[in-house]
């Protein structure tokens, strides 16, 4: 019995091939939604020799991968290490974790990120290797064009590889007037954004309210828009033409009044 267990352990410790690691990374990286490069692209990484540098960070759905490279020095060859963070946090500049993927005997490493395609080119045990990862889920923002539908700055606008449902927020029955609506974006009196923009996660859409008349718009809430109705927020009327209470639209028999959160509400 002991021998059998030993045999298993031995087999498990056997070296993994480049192809296996490439496939393993491809399976996960095609779903990457954000990339941060740590070294210049298109040139061989040669500095600092003998030290480990952060090559890049890839944010996946609920975790991130930090890719490090031990830069070769004299007879000591390089090594690529992929460390997995269980949540999306910035990767430390130097490797402090256990690698889920390690590729040893690496030299002349060069990374490229062009047209949402990530390439790692290197020499491995004397042979040239190229790993390519099309990153379909990376989105650098929206493009709004007159008379056209919305586009995204991504490999193929409107296409993503699906890895599971997002964490939706808000219900269709949530009402601002009942204190149920979730705020997904907040603007403070200095017109600064407070916290992150979470409105893309609103399952039933979102709407903007009139509060501090900021150029970038007001705070936003998830759910069905009932602006203009009694005890609901006033609809924004625009920030250039109007000031104070005039920035809100209410039904003809109601008037916009600031509530305790400085949001114009129709009463």
């Amino acid at each position: 019995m002991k021998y059998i267990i030993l045999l298993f352990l031995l087999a498990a410790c056997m070296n993994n091939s480049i192809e296996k690691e490439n496939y393993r990374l491809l399976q996960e990286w095609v779903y990457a939604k954000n990339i941060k490069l740590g070294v210049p692209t298109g040139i061989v990484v040669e500095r600092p020799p003998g030290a480990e540098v952060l090559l890049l960070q890839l944010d996946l759905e609920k975790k991130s991968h930090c890719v490090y490279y031990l830069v070769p020095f004299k007879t000591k060859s390089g090594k690529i290490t992929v460390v997995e963070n269980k949540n999306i946090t910035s990767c430390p500049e130097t490797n402090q974790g256990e690698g889920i993927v390690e590729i040893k005997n690496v030299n002349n490493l060069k990374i490229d990120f062009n047209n949402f395609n990530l390439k790692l080119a290197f020499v491995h045990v004397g042979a040239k290797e190229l790993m390519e990862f099309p990153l379909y889920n990376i989105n650098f923002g929206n493009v709004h064009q007159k008379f056209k539908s919305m586009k995204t700055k991504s490999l193929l606008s409107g296409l993503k590889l699906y890895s599971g449902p997002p964490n939706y927020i808000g219900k269709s029955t949530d009402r601002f007037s009942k204190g149920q609506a979730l705020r997904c974006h907040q603007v403070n009196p200095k017109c600064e954004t407070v916290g992150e923009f979470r409105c893309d996660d609103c399952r039933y859409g979102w709407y903007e309210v009139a509060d501090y008349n900021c150029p970038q718009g007001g705070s936003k809430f998830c759910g069905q828009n009932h602006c203009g109705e009694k005890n609901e927020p006033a609809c924004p009327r625009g920030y250039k033409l109007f000031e104070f209470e005039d920035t809100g639209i209410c039904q003809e028999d109601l008037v916009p009044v600031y509530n305790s959160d400085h949001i114009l509400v129709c009463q």
Partner: protein
Amino acid sequence: MKYFKRIFIFVTLSLFVAIFFLRKTQWDNPEYFVRKKTILLNLTKSAQELHRIWFDGEDSREWGKVRNQCLQKYGITDGFDESMLRCHPLLLECVNQFLDKKPFKIVNTTFQYPNYIFTLSDNSDTEKIDVALTDTCHEIYLEQGVYSYGEAPKDHSVEDYQFDNFNRYIYFDQHLVTNSEINEWLKFDKSATTEGIKVETVGNNLFLPATNLSLKQMTNYCSYNGKQLMLAHFFDAATFFSQDRTRSPYYWTKKRNENNQSCDYIFSKDCLNLKKWRININSPSWAGLSDSLGGVTEAFRNPIDFESNLKASSYYFPKNSSWHRLGFRAHWDGEGLSLRNFDFKGIDVNNTYDKFQVGFRCMREVRP
């Protein structure tokens, strides 16, 4: 019994070891991973083809090859604006079903807001990939600017209602929501909000507007898609001729008296004898919004004047009716479709209709 137990453990362990080493041989074989990688990359290439056909729609060469079979399957014999097949799962499903050499193999389709999810499989069905495609084909971005609401005031005692949408990214539906879009909603939303809604699943009505919903159901449909029912003042913004402050009542001209009663501009009651009405039959407004006047009536949410929530301009009224004016709206109670549910202000009311058709469209705001 004692031997049986030993033999059983030995056989089980041997089998386990044999399977492990068999798989291990596979796992250590680079060819195995090269093949797996190739299959995965090929699936992403299929996803690109899926994306191309999704957005090209009726312009794709694949549609030309499956068009007849597809229309036959859905019992569509009348002509309709086939651009509505863009970003519509119906077209992809037909390509998947009828095309001999298809560029992908769809094994499942579902909706997970805000995307349609198509599960693609390789030919041997060993690998699958879920591809999410968004429906943005029929939305149009409303240019930022200063706009006016309602008809131009006749004198200074009435406020000339203006608003702006600077730094706001508003998208409106180009055309009215169709029965086929409601079908899709009913297919995937099994909540109480869809209870009791009936639409036709095949036939020429598929690409005609959904006109038998209550105002609440319309709101729920838009909400399910992360949108809201079209707001009356944004409808005005998208239809009054090119941000015309003087507000001509006609979407094609700045001239207030240029009332062109041709069916090419307003599909009125008089046009019903000449041709069948369909979505996008007339020119769109300056902003790209179709059916600004004429056709079926259209419901809005009007946060300024709750009572004016219906574009009455439709084929229920003759070409010389005063309803055929932008910014001039009737009231609908949002519940029934018979005459008593509407307030047409006594203008050109025709009691011969048992039921009026009320269409709707949605709009949304997106982040910068």
